[in-house]
Each structure stands twice: as structure tokens, then as C-alpha cells.
């Protein structure tokens, strides 16, 4: 059975939007509360590997793309999920499913200010420890040092 059909059958109603950019690049949308179960199915049952996660700052909230790699078929399945609202953005952590998510989520947390519920060790990874608490450099409204008025 084709892997695409397998995923569609297994995830069934969880998939909100299925989009095949090319035969090797597939994007689908998942509700925020479903990500942990979906990731668990993809990792444990289908043997996918979390390649990385991309966070994006949209005008009405945040978007996270979890890129899963199917190494047998050589495809990338990108699981898209949206977080509404910019204040107190929060999403379930995937660390209980696989450890690969640990650093990826720490990076997103400090650069975008998205909180990951259930992450065991959420502290600064790339930025200095004394980085201002309410400044997230990858957000679009962040002012870089040279852009600020003195």
C-alpha cells in the first residue's frame, strides 16, 4: 500500500487539508490538540523521523510545521498546525514522544516565545542567559539593536 494512502487511512479525520506539492513533498494540516497523537503514530507506527520543525510568525498567530522524513520512500511529510493569537501562545511538547524534539522546541521557545506544555527543560539554548524575557528575535515585530531609536 502506498505510504500516502496509509497515512490518510490511519489519520483519517485528523487531517484537515492535504496538499501534494510534488511526489516527495506533502503538506497536511492538523489541529493543535492532535499533534502529540499524530506525531506518535508517525514515529512509532510508520517509522518516520522528525527532521525538524519550522515556526513562523503570521499576522494572526503562529504556525508550526513539523517536517517528518520517511527515509524508505524518500518523502517529507510536513505537518502544519496553527496557534491562534500572539499572547500566551502555547502548544503540546513532543518530547514525550521522541527526544529529537527537545532542542528543536527549546530553539522555537526562545526565538518565537511559544510555550511548549510538557517540555522537561525549557531554557535558553542559543541566546545568552540574560536575554530580555519579553524579546523574541524571530518575531516580525522585533526591533533589532540598530533599528531602535536611541
Amino acid at each position, binding site marked *: 500500500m502506498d505510504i500516502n494512502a496509509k497515512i490518510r487511512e490511519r489519520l483519517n479525520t485528523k487531517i484537515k487539508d492535504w496538499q501534494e506539492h510534488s511526489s516527495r*513533498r506533502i503538506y497536511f494540516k492538523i489541529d493543535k490538540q492532535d499533534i502529540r497523537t499524530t506525531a506518535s503514530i508517525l514515529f512509532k507506527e510508520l517509522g518516520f523521523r522528525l527532521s525538524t520543525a519550522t515556526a513562523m510568525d503570521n499576522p494572526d498567530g503562529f504556525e508550526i510545521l513539523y517536517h517528518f522524513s520517511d527515509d524508505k520512500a524518500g518523502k517529507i511529510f510536513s505537518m502544519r498546525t496553527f496557534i491562534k493569537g500572539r499572547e500566551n501562545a502555547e502548544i503540546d511538547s513532543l518530547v514525550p514522544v521522541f527526544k529529537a524534539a527537545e532542542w*528543536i522546541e527549546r530553539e522555537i521557545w526562545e526565538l518565537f516565545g511559544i510555550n511548549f506544555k510538557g517540555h522537561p527543560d525549557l531554557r535558553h539554548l*542559543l*541566546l545568552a542567559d540574560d536575554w530580555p524575557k519579553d524579546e523574541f*528575535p524571530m518575531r516580525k515585530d522585533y526591533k533589532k539593536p540598530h533599528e531602535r531609536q536611541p
Partner: protein
Amino acid sequence: MSHKVIIPIGPYHPLQEEPEFFRLYVEGEKVVDIDIVIGYNHRGIEELAEDKHYDQVTFLVERICGICSSSHPFAFVLAVEDLLKTQVPERAHYIRMIVDELQRLHSHLLWLGLAGHFIGYNTVWMWAWRYREPVLDLFEQISGNRNNYAMMKVGGVRRDIKPEDLPTIKKQIDKLIPVLDMFKGAITDDPVIKARLKGVGVLTREQVLDFGALGPTARASGVDIDVRRDEPYAMYSSIKWSVITQKDGDVFAKTMVRILEMYESINIIRQCLVKMKKGPIDANVTDLIPGEGIGRVEAPRGECFHYIKSDGTNRPVRHKIRAPSFMNVATNKVSCVGGTISDAAITLGAVDPCYCCTERTAVIAKTTNTKIMNGWDLIKLCQEKTHKLLHKLEK
């Protein structure tokens, strides 16, 4: 008796240069826990890329890492080409592959040298780096620079390999075969190297999958992944080569994977030189469309991942970069714990953490802070162990 010691490795030490700081928690000789601090090298490249247009980004991503300076631009141009569904001319594919495989050769030779240095074989270091020079000369001949090649371009390559350069490339890579034979023989035959590397820093298959480790680190543990075969970009599908795997997952297996991979690289370059036909090298991409694209490349250290989101203007809206070391370095958490402190340097180094990474390390034993060492001392410890073994053998 538990005895608590601080061994801050770093902040600066002579061999490795890049962005990490390890706190090793030690009880006696044994490493019980490790805390990895990175970010000393964080320059905010993802954010800078959003301020630059696509042609400039290739130069920017080239400077993410000096060792894989063709992999990152390669992955980036693949991402943009995936977005646009560009057909790249065949000759450009082969040129890209030659540059990428030459880079793998130089990167693995570099790693071999540094690994030799860690276990006290400075001769290996000097020899490996000596034989790396001809590869860098080839780069200089092809691209004009020893390290940052600036060969990749959306839609093709920036410059052609001249026909008169081809015999030199062939001659130089042929010369590398006896060198690799020598290194392979030296490593497989030497009882001291075996004693130092076998069973050290073992990473099991399950741990690799859990941490999402990549490249030689994963292949040494029997996880058979290689983007070049799984998702054949460029012309890898038209070439005969094999993916190297080992079962043991220790430092010895990682070394063997890298050495055997160099043979494969030479094999690939040879076939590319034969198959490369005259033709255009650039698809002349002019327009961009809104959308998203993903490009991935097997860098010397594993899969290198680039994601591009475009809104149709000449600058990316979002550019996500994930270097392979980001996943691999985290595995030190399991591979280092349980080993002795004198094995720590080589274990930390074995994932080839883009190399300069391991430098800033602190070793903290669990109770009182009685002893302070630096990174140099950690390497010395590692080297002394080898020398002790050598003396035993001589007796």
C-alpha cells in the same frame, strides 16, 4: 567515594573552535551526567536571510559552517528549485556533485586528523591534514578559493569546471586511494587504536532513532539512512555507489564509516567526471512564485535541511535551516555518560560536531569543586591513556 570536581573545558582551547560548552558531571573517573550549552556561535542567520535576496542568501548560508560550505548553499538552492520546480541542466548537477563530494573528502580527512590528535596520535593529525591540502588545491583550481566555493546558484552553478582541470582532478583523487589504504590499514591493524576506540561511546540503534541522529553517527549504529540514496537529488540516481553502515555504534565504527565513505566519494567523483557532458550550466531563473520549498542534502555530517517560504518577492519570508550537528550533538547526552573521563574527548569528538564545537567544556563533579582543568587537559587525559596502553604493549 564520590569526589566532586570542576573541569571547565574552555572557554578557549587550541584545537576546536566552535560553539559549545559541556559540563561534565564526574564521580571519580566516571562521567555521570552531561550538560551541553551551545549558542556561542549563534549569529541569527535565519533572521538575516529574511533581509537578503535569494542570490545573496546563497553566500550567507555558505558561511554557516566553513567545513560544509557547499552543503548549505546546495540545500538552499534545492529548496528554491523545489518551490519553483526548476529543471536544472545536467552538467550543473554533475558539477554540484563533484564539489559536494570533494568537500566530503576534505571534511572526513579533517575529522580523521583531529580524532588522531585526541587519542594522542599527532602523526595521524599531521598526515591527514597534509593529504587534505591537495583537495583544497583542487577547490582553489575549480572555484578560486580554498574554502568558500560560491559554486551554487539557484538554477545551476556559478562557474563551469574547465576541461583542462579535469585531468588534474582525476590525478589528485587517484593519489588519495593509497593514502586511504594507509589510514585504513593503520586503524584496523593497530591494537592500541582498537583498544581506545572499540566499545567507547556506544550509541544504540534505538537511541539514534530517538534523538533523530543523522549521517555517519546514525550509520555507524546500523541505521541505514542517506539522503543521497533515499531522495536522490542531483544525479545520484544515475551513479553506482553504496551506503556504508556499521553495526557497533562505537567510536571505532564511526571512524570506519567515515574512512569507507571517502572511497565512495572518490568513486562518485570518478563516475561524474566520465558522465559529465558539455552543455549549459544555468537554467536562468528569473521569476519567483509564492509557495514553499524544502531542500535537503547529505552533508558530511548528515542531512542538512532548508525550508523556504516565499511570497513572490525577491526575499524569503521564512528561511529555516537545520544543520546536521544540531541533531547529532544532542546524542552526546547518552554516548558520553557511563564512560570514563579520559574517553570523553574522543566521544564528544566522534559525532564530528561541525568540528569546532566541542571546545567549551566544563567538567563538574557532583560534590565540592576541587579541581579545575581546561579543554586542553581533557585532550591530554585522553592522550595519556593511549600512551599508557602503548607502554603496556611494549613491555
